[in-house]
């Protein structure tokens, strides 16, 4: 259909121009903005992306995505050379990072296998329980994970002889990774696997009657989300030059959820938009408002966004876009006259 093609090419145009702006940004912004805002937003945004993927395409709201990221983070922290306290493994980054991502994917699958029979509030409670247990586990494990203090001096690999943590280098690595994972989510959502997931979200009984194993597909979705969150966990650990129980605390878990929700769960880009907004507010609120009470300001801003648009910033943008398109293309009254434009009540089973 011609309108579909026009829509696709215009959204491709938007994607290319946004990418161009993002590539140019570090040359315009100060290093503080590049590193402390944008890189931080991207590395945490990747974990939020994994949550959005599960929530939107699978209808599975999981609070255990920071656990998966933590598994990847702790894997590299306990295995690479240079980390303090010193470990006996001394595996180079080129092996430790793939290992971390594989273990994160496996733990994603495991969490999926545990949580697969539960839905909605019960899924939320089970994944929250997993998150809290993992936090206390890493805090209590002094022998390998160095307990409360965690593991420091995880500097990351060199990229073509340049340390990854060089500001520009880290920015572009984070950008390229974020974009690749974003593209992966879009690709998966359009594949047969992604369509089956969306079908399961709409009506699991129907999908099983069509010959699909609902449980296996849900577990696989947790695996894909684990892969994404694992890569996020590797970058978060290198960004923070180490990992401690604080990285996987309930506070971080909730932060990831907030990023996804204020960005909007209706589109994968929402995770990154939410992460940027969250990081900016989280960074500057203390300057704008009483140092002891800046959390109140953060809370009020989030409340305002969610009240104004329950489906987050992307939902707001979608509605504004529909409104504009409606003003331009459709004469008043056309919506009421054309039955195909009216949304029907979704059928349930």
């Amino acid at each position, binding site marked *: 259909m011609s309108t579909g093609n026009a829509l696709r090419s215009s959204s491709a145009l938007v994607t290319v121009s946004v990418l161009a702006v993002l590539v140019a940004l570090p040359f315009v912004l100060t290093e503080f903005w590049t590193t402390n805002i944008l890189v931080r937003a991207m590395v945490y945004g990747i974990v939020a992306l994994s949550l959005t993927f599960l929530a939107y395409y699978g209808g599975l709201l999981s609070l255990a995505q920071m656990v998966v990221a933590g598994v990847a983070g702790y894997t590299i922290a306990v295995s690479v050379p240079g980390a303090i306290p010193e470990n006996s493994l001394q595996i180079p980054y080129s092996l430790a990072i793939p290992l971390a991502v594989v273990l994160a994917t496996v733990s994603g699958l495991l969490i999926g296998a545990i949580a697969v029979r539960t839905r909605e509030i019960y899924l939320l409670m089970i994944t929250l329980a997993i998150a809290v247990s993992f936090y206390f586990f890493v805090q209590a494990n002094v022998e390998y994970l160095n307990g409360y203090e965690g593991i420091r001096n995880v500097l990351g690999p060199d990229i073509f002889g340049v340390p990854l943590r060089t500001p520009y280098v880290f920015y572009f690595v984070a950008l390229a990774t974020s974009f690749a994972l974003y593209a992966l989510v879009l690709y998966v959502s359009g594949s*047969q696997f992604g*369509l089956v997931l*969306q079908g399961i979200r709409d009506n699991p*009984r129907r999908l*099983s*009657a*069509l010959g699909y194993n609902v449980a296996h597909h849900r577990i696989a979705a947790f695996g894909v989300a684990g892969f994404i969150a694992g890569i996020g966990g590797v970058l978060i650990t290198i960004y923070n030059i180490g990992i401690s129980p604080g990285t996987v605390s309930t506070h971080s878990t909730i932060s990831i959820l907030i990023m996804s929700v204020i960005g909007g769960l209706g589109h994968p880009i929402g995770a990154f938009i939410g992460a940027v907004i969250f990081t900016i507010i989280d960074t500057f609120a203390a300057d704008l408002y009483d140092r002891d009470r800046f959390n109140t300001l953060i809370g009020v801003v989030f409340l305002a966004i969610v009240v104004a648009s329950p489906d987050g910033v992307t939902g707001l943008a979608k509605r504004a876009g529909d409104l504009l398109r409606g003003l331009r293309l459709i004469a008043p009254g056309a919506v009421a006259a054309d039955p195909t434009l009216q949304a029907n009540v979704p*059928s349930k*089973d």
Partner: protein
Amino acid sequence: MLSVRDLRVSFGHAEILQGVSLDVGDEPFAVAGRNGMGKTTLCYAIMGMVPVQSGGVVFDGASIEGKSPTRVSRSGIAIVPQGRRVFPSLTVDEHLRLVSRGKNAAWSIERVYDTFPRLAERKGNGGSQLSGGEQQMLAISRALLLNPKLIIMDEPSEGLAPVLVDHLIEVLKKLANEKIGLLLVEQNLRVATSVASNVAIMLSGRIAATVPASQLSADEALQRRYLGVSTGSH
């Protein structure tokens, strides 16, 4: 092809199926009956979507009662459920890609679009934006793409305008020539008798009688006795 023997299903104290037996061969077979007689439960019981208390279901020589819907579907039975149950958030094209078995299967997406040109026109529309007739075509296509040996259709004519019911009858007759088995559950006697060669009449969870379609459509007394309706009144 499909043989159901003394099938019993209960929900709590209510015995919905009280020993149903029927045989579906190569010819289309219909089950007629008024509301609440257990027709939909029969469909669900064959598909494994409700627990079966006792009795047997044999399909293609293998026993399938008590198997999960996933396994039953993979053994070659597809269901077109009552009320269509298309996915509100997927487009027509996405529905078809979801179940497609590739270009070389007997039923491919291209063949579906050739058979139902209306669906090709509505490719990009969401499931909830389709009319009842279009949703029915989509639900039938979704079943066909699984390349089943047998299709169970639960009240396909429900909620369709009379002109669309005629179209549906044409479509079902065409499918009957495709060597796909058809178990048609219908309240609309005109649909049941024009598509199927034999019609089983269901009464309070039992098969009261199985009669040739031609005999049922001619015998108004029989219709009134079991169904309380006649083709003339429809």
